[in-house]
């Protein structure tokens, strides 16, 4: 061994001695980055709520609700939160319900929504109206600028003839389809 080799070995030994304590104390680690992709999509959701002035809805707060006028007559006592008005040959039972449409991701939400409705099958002899608009089996516009995220009150009326109409004592049912469309 020449002097050069001895010097190299000495330096190597010092280097190993210096590095050894540090190597024993360091624990392995790893890092990573998760890039999450999420887009706030545009969409609307409608629910039907009971109105303070109307009959209590079944399934209130959902998009599938029921509204029972109860027993209605021209001259008898009106059910709670149902108003009866008499015309020449008809009487009208009126109550109220709320529509609440929520939106997400619409940049033009201030434009509101359009509400339309149709009835699946008409009740013979009885005219159904929402906000004074007579419902048919084809879609009818009810309002053109509904406000999002608030309960909007709507009246619903049944116009019943006082003679030649539905058989008294028989329950009548109709399904109304409501559609909210963003403007």
């Amino acid at each position, binding site marked *: 061994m020449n002097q050069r080799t001895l010097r190299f070995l000495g330096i190597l030994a010092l280097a190993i001695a210096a590095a050894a304590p540090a190597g024993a104390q360091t624990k392995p680690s790893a890092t990573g980055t998760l890039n999450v992709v999420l887009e706030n999509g*545009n*969409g*609307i*959701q*409608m*629910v*039907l709520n009971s109105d303070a002035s109307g009959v209590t*809805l079944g399934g209130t707060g*959902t*998009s*599938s*609700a*029921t*509204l*029972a*006028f*109860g*027993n*209605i*007559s*021209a*001259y*008898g006592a009106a059910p709670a939160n149902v108003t009866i008005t008499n015309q020449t040959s008809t*009487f009208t*039972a009126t109550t109220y*319900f709320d*529509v609440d*449409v929520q*939106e997400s*991701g*619409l*940049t*033009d939400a201030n*434009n509101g929504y359009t509400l339309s409705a149709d009835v699946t099958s008409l009740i013979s002899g*009885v005219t*159904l109206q929402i906000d004074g608009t007579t419902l048919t089996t084809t879609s009818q516009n009810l309002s053109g600028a509904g406000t999002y995220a608030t309960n909007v009150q709507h009246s*619903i009326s*049944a116009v*019943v003839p*006082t*003679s030649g*109409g*539905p*058989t*008294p*004592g*028989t*329950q*009548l*049912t*109709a*399904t*109304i*389809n*409501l*559609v*909210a*469309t*963003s*403007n």
Partner: protein
Amino acid sequence: MQWRLWVCAMLVIAAITPACAQSGQTSSSTLVVSMTVQSSISLEFVNVQTGTGYCQISGANTSSASLNLGIASMSGDNMDSENGGCVNWYTGNNAYNILNYVYVKVFEANTTSSTYTLNAALGSVPPANVTWKFESMTNNLSTSPQPVSSSVQYATAYGMQLLVTVGSTAASGNIGESINFTAMAN
């Protein structure tokens, strides 16, 4: 130049696409409506004629009316000033009689009947020697319902001549009564 037009067109389409995608979002719901129509009738008092024997009711066209027949007596003194001369009055058999027409009108809805039965009852037992009846009735009015007519047409004014007979021995004072009518669909 043409490629520039294409670029401009594509930029315009790219700019308006997001806005278009946001409109026309829809949400649907269903509302099942139910109701049961019931038969019903209503009764109201109406004024039809004027003159002697046709005192006017107040509260006309409602089901709660009042009729002021004023102050009557065997002598008939001052009757015109007390009741406006509308009362038909006569004496006989140690009594005086007050005659006055009362009209009711009954409406029906969603019934299959074309007529109704009308009953009437006094609200309280009249004083001694005072009787009340409608001339169409066989018996005097009492606190139990008595038939006035068994077949009256709807929506037409039905007149009943009220007869109050006051015997000479009846005590002076208020002899007014409430008459409760009940109409029932036949």
